[in-house]
């Protein structure tokens, strides 16, 4: 692609990018306002968190803009190295990471703390896109063709799971499975893969006593019966459901959520940010945010459909799937549909690594869409 052509194509490309960027800005803005409300009872410390989150959003925007100048095919070439770097960082986090709430998932780099597992998700998406772009040999991949991609996914998944961070490990598995299905699999492969997953789950269930941490077992037990331990693990779900439910149709108003302001809700500016939103803005607020997310996913899938080549299509799809599973698991968790696993809500939850990863995912979609004609 010559420089001249790139000049010619700029207008249409930028125009195409705007809707996605606007959706991202709207979601981040809602996130900042909700974090402000959620951290208001903390006083000055809360305001510091809002400023930090703003900084991360700004950093994400800059990173996104810079990334758009490069052709996404660079990702195809660099995918193996990104993947190796992600695995090395995960091992480093295990070795020298910072222990927060009993798990090692943070890596201290100078002034900031990074969560390598967040970036690992992106690296795995690119690596899988590179592997799957050749397409299946028949009407769908046979089981043995999936062994290599399965191995590529399981290694970082295990590294994340032993941190222990089951939520992120689960998201990695779901994103990978979505991509494999999207890339095309045969009936027998689906059956075989399903059997393998069922076997793995059974094994985990049988060996849960020494595989799962005490709090994870409690959370699973609580999922099936929230009243089982109302002050322990079930407390989160019950309080979150009360917060969401009491929001009603139009909510209690900004800064007026009694559940939020009285600090009934735990980790409310990170994993439970959606409960704060639901309490203060009601069903209308939830509808708005979920509609924005749905629009973003639809746009992402349209990009995957119209991409120039299989790699672009798979990469855009993988990024969409990543955001989709985050939203689904997080909202499902706070409403009590899925167990409490600690997955952030993209763009809304407080956290630099999550924000950067989400912005990068959208940047990949925009990048693929911009270069669909060249």
């Amino acid at each position, binding site marked *: 692609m010559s420089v001249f052509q790139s000049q010619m194509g700029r207008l249409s490309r930028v125009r195409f990018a705007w809707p996605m960027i606007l959706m991202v800005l709207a979601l981040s803005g809602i996130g900042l306002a909700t974090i402000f409300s959620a951290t208001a*009872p903390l006083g000055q*410390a809360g305001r510091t968190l809002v400023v930090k989150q703003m900084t991360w959003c700004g950093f994400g925007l800059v990173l996104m803009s810079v990334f758009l100048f490069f052709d996404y095919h660079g990702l195809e070439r660099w995918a193996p190295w990104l993947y190796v770097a992600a695995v090395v960082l995960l091992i480093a986090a295990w070795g020298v990471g910072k222990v927060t709430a009993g798990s090692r998932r943070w890596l201290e780099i100078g002034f900031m703390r990074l969560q390598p597992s967040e970036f690992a998700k992106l690296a795995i998406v690119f690596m899988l896109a590179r592997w799957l772009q*050749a397409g299946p*040999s028949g009407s769908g991949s046979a089981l043995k063709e999936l062994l290599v991609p399965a191995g590529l996914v399981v290694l970082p998944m295990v590294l994340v799971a032993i941190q222990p961070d089951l939520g992120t490990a689960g998201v990695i598995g779901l994103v990978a499975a979505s991509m494999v299905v999207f890339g095309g699999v045969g009936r027998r492969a689906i059956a075989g893969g399903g059997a393998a997953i069922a076997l793995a789950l059974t094994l985990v269930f049988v060996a849960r006593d020494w595989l799962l941490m005490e709090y994870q077992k409690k959370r699973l037990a609580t999922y099936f019966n929230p009243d089982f331990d109302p002050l322990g693990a079930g407390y989160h779900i019950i309080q979150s459901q009360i917060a969401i439910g*009491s929001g009603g149709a139009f909510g209690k108003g900004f800064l007026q959520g009694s559940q939020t302001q009285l600090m009934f809700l735990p980790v409310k500016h990170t994993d439970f940010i959606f409960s704060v939103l639901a309490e203060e803005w009601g069903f209308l607020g939830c509808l708005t945010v*979920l509609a924005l997310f749905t629009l973003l996913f639809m746009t992402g899938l349209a990009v995957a459909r119209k991409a120039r080549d299989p790699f*672009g299509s798979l990469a855009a799809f993988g990024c969409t799937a990543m955001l989709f599973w985050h939203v689904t698991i997080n909202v499902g968790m706070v409403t009590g549909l899925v167990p409490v696993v600690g997955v952030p809500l993209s763009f809304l939850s407080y956290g630099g690594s999550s924000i950067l990863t989400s912005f990068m995912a959208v940047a990949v979609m925009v990048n693929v869409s911009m270069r669909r004609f060249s």
Partner: protein
Amino acid sequence: MPTLPRIRSVAEYYGPRSRWAAAVVLLVMAVLLGKLWHLQLVLGESYEEMSQKNRVRVVRLLPSRGRILDTTGRVLADNAPAFTLATVRADLEDPRQVVDVCGPLLGLAPEKMRKAVEQSSSVPRFLSYPLKRNLTLEEVSLVKSRTGGMKGLVLEVKSRRFYPLGQTLCHVIGILGEISAPELSRSSHMGYKSGDLLGKTGIEKQYEAYLKGVEGWEQIEIDAKGRQLSGKIAKQPESGADLMLTVDAALQQYIESIFIHRAGAVVVVDADNGHVLAMLSKPGFDLNLFSQAISRREWDELSRDPLHPFENRAIRGLYSPASTFKMVTAAAALAEHEVTEGHEFVCKGELELGGQVFRCWNRYGHGRVSLRKAIVESCDIYFYHLGLRLGVDRIARYASLFGLGRPTGLGLPQELPGLVPTSAWKLRTLGESWKDGETLNLAIGQGYLVATPIQIAMMTAAVANGGRLLKPSIVKRIQAGDGRILFDHAPVVQCTIPLSPEKMDLIKDALVGVVYDGKGTGRRCRITGIKVGGKTGTSQVIRHRQRTEEYTQVPYHERAHAIFVAYVDNLPKRIVVVVVVEHGGGGGKTAAPLARKIICKYYGLADPGEPEEVQESGSEH
């Protein structure tokens, strides 16, 4: 024939798949919205009711902080309830009634009271805002009886620190303060929350982890009126461990009562196990000021005091050990065979070296001086000669064998190391080579050499116990709330001074002479019936002054510091006393009588008073 997707167009292959995916996305979003619909619109009212009633709050139960006791079990730091009347904006129905009723009850002017109630809107409306802190018990019962039906008022009970002895041992015990932002981020994993108290200085800081305890939590249910319906303790807090100090509070209080000088320090240690029996730093402050809200004025007064009342001079005051250091020089010279018992030098009152004249404190000279006479009469010329024979670095080596130049490791925060100069040190920091004249100053404990009173005490204890340098300790025992002993002190010997017992006895005999000989400089510490060794020191603050001036004619800040060290030799429990009086003039005159009184008090002897034949002599060492 299998067709590869590369041959087909991307849209053809991925288009249908992407539409399937879109369908899945819409379906899942619909499920999520359905759940939200159910929670918010169908069950919304009942959840609304629950959130109204739901005053099932999880409240932290703070543990009671461990107490600090003296060696006899007397309480030095305890916990007492502190009552605060606060208001919760969200529940406040009639602010005027609160102002009208509570103002007079608490003795607050209506204006002030109204302002406080208005201020409560500055915090989130569900949080409590304090109207008045530290209510007295009468006020508490008045408020309880008169404001029964009033909404939005809460009486909060918190535990605060209470120090029964007030000012006694203030530097050792230390103060509590609200956790600062950097401390919070450093120790968030230990369960501290913003607004928590933790030790800022002294024992309270050093042993924070022991004293703190483990917090519990309670589930309390409050009705719509804000009244507590039920409380269920889910986890009992565990109170912190009690700390028993080695300090004897009665002795400490006695020392405080007799230390009438403006500033200085006293350290009393047990020479055989390193227990600190008393540690005074003057001026001090009242610990109870800090456990209640200290007023701006009181704080300014204390922090601007030129005498720095917050400094613990016993571990942070740097003084030239002056002539008390002569026992180290003597030990070095004996151990290195540079001098023998009988060897004599002639003191003519001055010594010329490299064109400079070095004087003895006695300008008329001591005549022929042996080791014993040199220590007893504190002859400087004799020690100048020893200094020249030993050289700076050998003196420095013995000084560090006696524990100078590094913190003693007593276990109080921010202890200073002092300084033992060496020729390498001077080259490194000042860029100059060492001069012989400076060796002379070092030999008599002046010049660059500085030490803290606790270091001087351990140095003296090493002589008194025959050559063992002990690590001092101030905590004797730590006992957990459930009775387990977490720590029990055992003496730690840091090093042994390589000096034969006979030679050590030579020095000890001379130190006893300081107190009991007719011309001894420590005569004012004489106690008949027991055997006391001692050494005077006069730590010069400015370099040179005309000797003829009376000490009362010198401005306060230019007067020399008076130092006296004493030890008791022939009793089963041997104690060491170090007295430093800042700008107190001569050590023998100002500091020695204090040491005598302390020793008498400790052993329960009658104070014999000053010996009568003592003549006034201007500036003795």
